């Protein structure tokens, strides 16, 4: 399924809002949470992550995982958290507006 412009970054922020994750885990989390509907190509997710890093919304740190692997783990910064709240309310507004327009279709119309 295609994503709207800028949505990917919002999804990443939201995912990281739940806790720090490494790059691959973010991609798995998004898929799992969307019940496999959103399959984000890693080739798109990674640059989005870098964009967020450059903007200073997420920060990255090398950490050793439970499986004793050295992974680069991303977490939200304070600024990123603020940004997430903004995006979240904007999205909620947007989604409800779209939902109002797109309300249930009359099945089997008279025609």
């Amino acid at each position: 399924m295609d994503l709207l412009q800028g949505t990917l970054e919002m999804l990443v922020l939201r995912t990281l809002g739940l806790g720090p994750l490494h790059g691959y885990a973010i991609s798995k989390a998004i898929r799992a949470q969307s019940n496999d509907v959103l399959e984000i190509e890693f080739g798109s997710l990674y640059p989005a992550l870098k964009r967020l890093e450059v903007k200073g919304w997420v920060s990255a740190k090398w950490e050793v995982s439970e499986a004793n692997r050295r992974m680069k783990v991303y977490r939200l910064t304070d600024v990123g958290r603020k940004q997430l709240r903004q995006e979240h309310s904007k999205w909620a507004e947007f989604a409800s507006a779209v939902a109002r327009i797109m309300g249930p279709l009359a099945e089997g119309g008279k025609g």
Partner: protein
Amino acid sequence: MSLFFKLVHLLPGRRRAVEEEMREELESLAALAEAEGRRAELGSLTRAAEKGRAVWIWSWLEQFAADIRFAARTMKRDRGFLFTAVLTLALGIGANTAIFTLVHAILLKNLPVVDPTALVRVGDHEDCCILNEAASSREGSYSIFPYETYKYLRDHTPEFEQLAAVQGGGADLSARRAAGNAMSHSSRGEFVSGNYFQTLGVQPLAGRNLMPTDDADGAAPVAMLSCQAWQRDYAGDPAVIGSGFYMNTHPVTIIGITPQAFYGERMTETPPDFYLPISQEPTLGFYSARNKAELGWLFLIGRVKPGVPMASLQEKMSGLLRQSLGELKDFQTVQGKTQLAKAHVVLTPGGQGVANMQHRTASSLYLLMGLAGMVLLIACANIANLMLVRGLARRSEISIRMALGAAKARVIRQMLTESVVLACLGGVAGLLLAFAGTKLLLRLMFTQAIVMPVDAAPSLQVIGFAFAVSLLTGLIFGVAPAWISSKEQPANALRSANRSTHDGSSLLQRSLVVLQAALSVVLLIGAGLLGKSLNKLQHQDLGLETENRVIIDMNPMKAGYKPEQLQGLYQQIEDKFHAMPGVEHVGLTLYTPLNGDSWSFYAYVQGQSAPAPGQDAGTLFNRASPDYFKAVGQRVLRGRTFTSADTATAPGVAVVNQAFVKKLFKPGENPLGMHIGLVDIKNSGDFEVVGIVEDTKYQNARDEPDAIVFVPMLQSVHIGPPKDLDSSLYAGQFVLHMQAMPPDLEQQVRRTLASIDPNLAVDHYQMFEHQIEENFSGERMIATLTLLFGVLALVLAAVGLYGVTAYSVQRRTQEVGLRMALGSSRRSVVVMVLRQAMLQAAVGLVIGIPVALFCVRTIKSVQSQLYEVAGRDAGVIAAAVCILAVAACIAGIIPARRAASIDPAKALRAE
């Protein structure tokens, strides 16, 4: 992350680190996915990395563009700041660029010839021009060679592709086109070996090159004409090529024109107009140097074959030199043999050719470079201060930006971008200033230049230099303000920034002012010392009188006079010029004091044994007509000077100076009536000493006066074999002592000389005082520029001090208001503010004076400039202290008065 770490984000090294980290991360993810057996889910990691990299680069570029836009916008808002900063920077960068233009053009550039780096000069000094080979070495190191020795070295060194010889001095020529009734041009020639142009790899602009066959015995007389002379004297007429000329009355054919950029094998204010083969020297020159195996007069420069080791070549050539010189009589005496054992050559890089101008100017140029660097440092400190003040004014803006989430690194980068943009603006203005400045410098440096040896137009390297300096400057003055801004606490935006009293910038600002004061004291002391030294040089007692005297250069040899005609010529010159209205004395001579010329010989006193080996028995030699001493104002101490009775056939007489008496006679001996001789001990009965004159400086205005002996114009000194032409019989200059200076004197002089013989031209006409002044042109340039830099530094430091004081007064308005409300008098407020300003100046002095003294003591190029001035001249230091104190006072009094005029009621109400 540290500030440093953030700054290096901008560097390529840091970018590589980012890439490396990305690669590591992607590999770790791949390994993880692999372990879970789902590697395919990640897709192409190369593509991911590529996109990730693009994010970095784009974001960097976008931010950079945004920073520049933002910088432009903020600066437009603040025109006063922009103007001050750009002007200050332009002065600093301009001064540095102007001097770098000279450093680059003179010291760093090679000759405009093919592969100059493969050229090698045989010798390491430039002693010139026609020297007895036995006396031409510097501690055994030979640089100027007889023609025979050149041929011997050339023919025994296959290591050279070519080894060329070129005359050490210049050849004085009177050149006239054969066709039509053309006028004679006083020109400069240079005798070169036939392979000269092949060695340098120079191709003619037109016509053909000089070839070794042109330099053979009996070859047709030919010459190459320089492009500059071709354009200047012959309007670039193509018919000149192949046409006949008369040079010093002998026919010569012009075969070609040298290329436009070519100026010979050395940089000089007087490049040669004609290049002539050495085979012509006995005909066109005046010394027959080519045929005298004992006369050193040629510099050697060659192109070495690739891969030849220099050390062994140098060793081999030293051996060859000893073999060649060993043939000479001078080297066969006991003394000569010890000298021969030490004889050697030093091979030096020849890319700059004969580098006398480089050696002459290097220390001055590096000194100026250092001074200009100091001025730029002061300018940097000034702008850093302005930026700090401005940064404080922008505190709330920056606090708000940080509160809104701007990263610290972003703020720093923004500030640095601003300072670099500012520096680049200053750099562009500085380049314009440098162009004008270079022209001024060249005029100060080469007062007598016929052709400016250096182009003032900025080259690519100079523009690059200016840009690099601007960038560096921007970073230097930008780092401190950026650092301080980034420490801003977002919360400060909410408070009134004006009231905080503790901030890092205030101490920093004061330190910058102290640094400025210290540097300007160093420059002021330098300017004072150099100025005083120049003053001493100019106003020393040279033992001469220069008022109402003109010096005229002529050359009867060029006009074709035979020795037997000279008596008549000199008589006519004396008579005709005496007849001119207002002429007091007419004096003929070989050369006048401090005109850059000299003759020297060994002198022997009759009855004394030959000087011991190593004893210096050399003395300057000159000739004088009866009126000469009066004409130059040289005082006679004892005995008499010459009269018209001292003719060529009369008994030999000589006049010596005090230094001569001291050097050659025993203490208490009466020289009058004793006999002396020149060149050889067997001549020691030639001249009776009839007079002693006061010491005067002839060769060098800085050194102690040299010993000198004068003989009458036409009495023989037995320089060479009797059949040889004695060129010392030909007067080179005469002096006119006038009662007053009529405005058309030069015209009268030219007419009078032409009325004696139309072939006899005035080669040069100059006031005596100007001739002496010219000796100090280098010192004057350095002193003028140091003073200029010193004043600039002082003004910048004063502005800096004013700025900081004014700012602190503004910030302390409420405090001052409170003090006054509590009963402080206006006077005590003035004193309080002034004390602070003076304290900074005083700390600057405490640091600056020892630094200045240390510099004067340790830097050789400073020491070599000083003449009879001690490095720690109390008067100069006191003057520098006073000047700085006055400047600090002026800079402090304005804000102090403003502080005193604060209305307590108003100041407290603003609370």
